[in-house]
């Protein structure tokens, strides 16, 4: 071992430990695993949005001799049970996800599986499986679903609604405040459906050992332990017979959080055949058939007094669940209601959330999870209130922002913000806005805007989940092992999805143990070895909860190593210091190597406690409360009046996520989130044909993602208010980039084009939307009135 560089690893922008492997092409994504001898699956999917399967006949497919197995609805139903959901909304129609349903409710719904010796052969065979579906009228979009004469997806829901909940102040009390308020700004908003679009689609390699009844699944998932449990339920297996391994994951963003039906079918095929079966989702499946996200229509009202003080905020949120509720289908809509108030002071606030079924692919989690939608509604309303009432939008915000002396503060919907200085962040963002504002020209209008938002991170105390009857475990578990040679192995239940968690966890442990960073290896993602984690790397919780647990585990391990070293040296423990690779006892002029202490420890020599031998410390951490990050964002945009195209010319954020473990990784998370937010703001949209329900985007030629030319320089400034509830003071930051970005961009567009500001209620702000609004506002190209 080289001379160690001890301590001080928290707060250092070290390169990612996995980067050298990935830049060399030595990644191990699921499709990179040796698949010699594996069979290949193709998923049969519904081509109609709504209908009854009347015939599923694999005879022609099997007669050709290429198919080794064709699974259809009958066989699937016979060998499986439905997949449970975790977070339901009161009145939810569908508590589970059926695998062998004979009613199809969206284009792309899995109805069967073909297995052959190559993907190409399986695709050939899939063509000749005879499937007849009696079509039923399709319901596409919220308006169609809620129309009085709309066709029903479920007979028990005549209006296609699938659940309702209210958060915050009693609706009657809210109405009273709104009725009495001097000013009320009301808008109907819309946030479009989005595809997560990870660069690596989903995929898995499933192996079944018939003799032992052991299922091993390598899957590109965010949630190996949850998928293990779901597979056991769906395939009627004992949990101990299922092992899920997450290899490298090529992005997820909330799109790989649970067991999906097609994935369960691949595992069923492996069991039926006693063989390894592989399925890699292609992009033409991923865009139309993988769960989507967002898709909600909030109607909201903001009440203010004469001085611009907020009196109340009310929202009725209608969310598009799609065909049925998956895992936590209503979750983002519920969080949109819970997070509505953001960092502001509202004497009264509340939201009613109603979920609706449509004949489109189910929606679920996506980075920003309801908080982006809440920020869209709230910040647009605040900008509109400022415009209508003649207030400066920054001053209006500062007038109503919670001050540091008001924290901790509990919102009307029950969120308790822990710590921070929200106005300071906004003031700084506004200062940057003043510096960066640029002049309009005859044909290019420019505007700047700033917004404020909070981010729920470190989700969540298990007792809170129990209170809300959400079937998740909120805690994290970790283990630190000092190996026989003194190297360190860290085990955690969270998983790497590109967010650099292998690096940040290693930094935390190296820092707290006082050993060099390259002595520490982090092992994640295999249910056979990883400590239990239910929610894993979702909800901005990996560094907060696993990192928080490791702060404690590493501290305990350091104490044990000190005690062992002191015993070996015959010194009082408080006189021994760790100096590089050596424990030194200056008073006794004696020293012993860290590696020697580790070797003696594993031999069981000189231990103070007879029952405590192996050099491992396990720590479970259940957060006592949610910890909240916050930020202020600013954008400068240009709108070309001739093309109606919006260009984001500059973007800046002032972010507080407590103690940062690795500022470069933190900045990468924030910038990456901002750019996903720009995608929502400007280009991304999962559109379905309103008549047939067919997805109109099946490739990246139709589903447009931001490219580098769309992305301005993004300035990231950090502030640090350590979390008061997380060991180490960490707060999460996985979602703070995306949450306010669409509202910030729209605010800047509104500043550039005040004549259409009232129309900026829906994303994406594509040229056709801007153009339509400009035409309606009868803007005569504008050039004459606003010379350069």
């Amino acid at each position, binding site marked *: 071992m080289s001379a160690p560089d001890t301590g001080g690893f928290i707060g250092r922008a070290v390169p990612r430990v996995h980067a050298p492997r990935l830049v060399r092409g030595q990644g191990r994504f699921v499709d990179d695993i040796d698949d010699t001898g594996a069979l290949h699956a193709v998923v049969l999917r519904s081509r109609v949005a709504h209908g009854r399967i009347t015939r599923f006949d694999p005879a022609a497919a099997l007669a050709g001799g290429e198919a080794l197995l064709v699974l259809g609805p009958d066989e699937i139903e016979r060998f499986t049970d439905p997949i449970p959901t975790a977070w339901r909304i009161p009145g939810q129609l569908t508590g589970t996800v059926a695998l062998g349903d004979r009613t199809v409710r969206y284009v792309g719904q899995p109805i069967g599986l073909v297995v052959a010796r190559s993907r*190409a052969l399986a695709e050939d065979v899939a063509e000749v499986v005879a499937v007849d579906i009696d079509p039923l009228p399709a319901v596409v979009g919220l308006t169609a679903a809620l129309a009085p004469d709309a066709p029903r997806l479920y007979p028990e829901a005549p209006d296609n609604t699938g659940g309702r909940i209210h958060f915050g102040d009693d609706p009657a009390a809210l109405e009273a405040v709104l009725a009495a308020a001097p000013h009320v700004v009301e808008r109907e908003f819309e946030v479009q459906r989005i595809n997560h679009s990870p*660069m690596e689609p989903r995929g898995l390699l499933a192996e079944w050992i018939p003799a032992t009844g052991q299922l091993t699944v390598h899957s590109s998932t965010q949630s190996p332990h949850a998928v293990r449990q779901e597979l056991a339920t769906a395939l009627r297996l004992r949990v101990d017979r299922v092992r899920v391994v997450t290899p490298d994951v*090529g992005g997820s963003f909330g799109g790989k959080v649970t067991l999906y039906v097609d994935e369960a079918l691949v595992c069923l095929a492996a069991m039926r055949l006693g063989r390894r079966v592989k399925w890699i989702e292609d992009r033409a499946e991923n865009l139309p058939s993988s769960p989507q996200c967002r898709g909600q229509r909030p109607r909201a009202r903001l009440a203010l007094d004469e001085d611009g003080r907020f009196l109340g905020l009310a929202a009725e949120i209608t969310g598009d669940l799609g065909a049925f509720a998956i895992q936590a289908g209503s979750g983002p809509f519920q969080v949109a209601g819970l997070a509505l108030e953001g960092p502001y002071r509202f004497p009264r606030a509340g939201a009613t959330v109603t979920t609706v079924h449509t004949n489109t692919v189910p929606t679920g989690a996506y980075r920003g999870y309801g908080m982006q939608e809440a920020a869209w509604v709230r910040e647009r309303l605040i900008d509109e209130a400022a415009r209508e009432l003649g207030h400066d939008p920054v001053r209006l915000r500062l007038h109503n922002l919670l001050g540091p002396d008001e924290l901790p503060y509990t919102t009307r919907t029950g969120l308790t913000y822990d710590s921070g200085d929200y106005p300071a962040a906004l003031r700084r963002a506004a200062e940057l806005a003043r510096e960066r504002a640029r002049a309009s020209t005859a044909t290019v209008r420019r505007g700047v805007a700033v917004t404020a938002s909070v981010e729920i991170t470190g989700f969540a105390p298990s007792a809170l989940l129990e209170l809300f009857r959400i079937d998740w475990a909120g805690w994290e578990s970790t283990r630190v092992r000092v190996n026989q040679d003194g190297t360190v192995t860290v085990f955690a239940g969270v998983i790497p999805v590109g967010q650099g968690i292998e690096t940040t966890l290693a930094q935390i442990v190296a820092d707290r143990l006082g050993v060099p960073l390259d002595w520490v290896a982090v092992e994640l993602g295999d249910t056979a070895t990883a400590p239990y984690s239910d929610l894993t790397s979702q909800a901005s919780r990996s560094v907060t909860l696993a990192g928080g647990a490791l702060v404690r585990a590493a501290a305990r391990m350091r104490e044990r190593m000190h005690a062992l070293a002191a015993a070996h040296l015959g010194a009082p423990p408080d006189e021994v210091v760790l100096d590089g690779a050596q424990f030194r006892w200056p008073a006794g002029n004696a020293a012993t190597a860290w590696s020697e202490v580790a070797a003696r420890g594993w031999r069981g020599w000189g231990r103070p406690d007879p029952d405590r031998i192996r050099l491992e410390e396990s720590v479970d951490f259940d957060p006592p409360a949610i910890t909240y990050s916050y930020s202020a964002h600013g954008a400068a945009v240009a709108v070309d009046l001739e093309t109606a195209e919006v260009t984001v010319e500059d973007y800046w954020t002032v972010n507080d996520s407590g103690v940062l473990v690795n500022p470069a990784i933190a900045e990468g998370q924030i910038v990456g989130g901002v750019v996903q937010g720009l995608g929502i703001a400007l280009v991304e949209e999962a559109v379905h044909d309103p008549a047939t329900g067919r997805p109109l985007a099946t490739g990246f030629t139709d589903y447009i993602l931001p490219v580098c030319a769309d992305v301005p320089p993004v300035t990231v400034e950090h502030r640090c208010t350590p979390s008061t509830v997380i060991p180490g003071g960490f707060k999460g930051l996985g979602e703070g980039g995306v949450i306010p970005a669409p509202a910030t961009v729209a605010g800047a567009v509104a500043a550039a084009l005040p004549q259409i500001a009232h129309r900026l209620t829906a994303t994406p702000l594509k040229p056709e939307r801007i153009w339509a609004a400009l035409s309606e506002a009868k803007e005569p190209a504008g050039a004459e009135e606003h010379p350069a």
Partner: protein
Amino acid sequence: MRTTPMSGTPISLSVNGTAYTAEAEDRTLLSDLLRHGLGLTGTHVACEQGVCGACTVLVDGEPVRSCLMLARQADGCRVETVEGLAEDGRPAPLQQAMTEEHGLQCGFCTPGVLMGLTYAERAGLSAEEAVTEVLRGHLCRCTGYAGIRAAIERHWQGEGAPA
């Protein structure tokens, strides 16, 4: 009677300086031959439409979307993939720059980006042209491109950088 999946016409090509003879069906894509025929899984496939650039390799020095090229079209060609970039077991300066500047998060798009930038470097493009002419043709969902742009800046200014 079952056909052998990888049966087909024999082709010869060089990949990263190593000569290979392989059998390719008419419909086998170059990306599939590289990944599943030759076991060079560093090249990733993400859209199968030539849009995202993840599968970019160099064929006779030119950048090619290997998901849009048939394996048989590469018969007799000189192919370079991400696995061939390192020199003497050490990462190439461009790979080092991507590592140092956090030019990747999940790393799935990275091999294609590296091959595109390798072409840009050899073609004598400026750093700005590397962004507008090459990076513009690659999708990355994680980084917002900031780290990749920083890596380009660093590499094009650093030692051994393009003239």
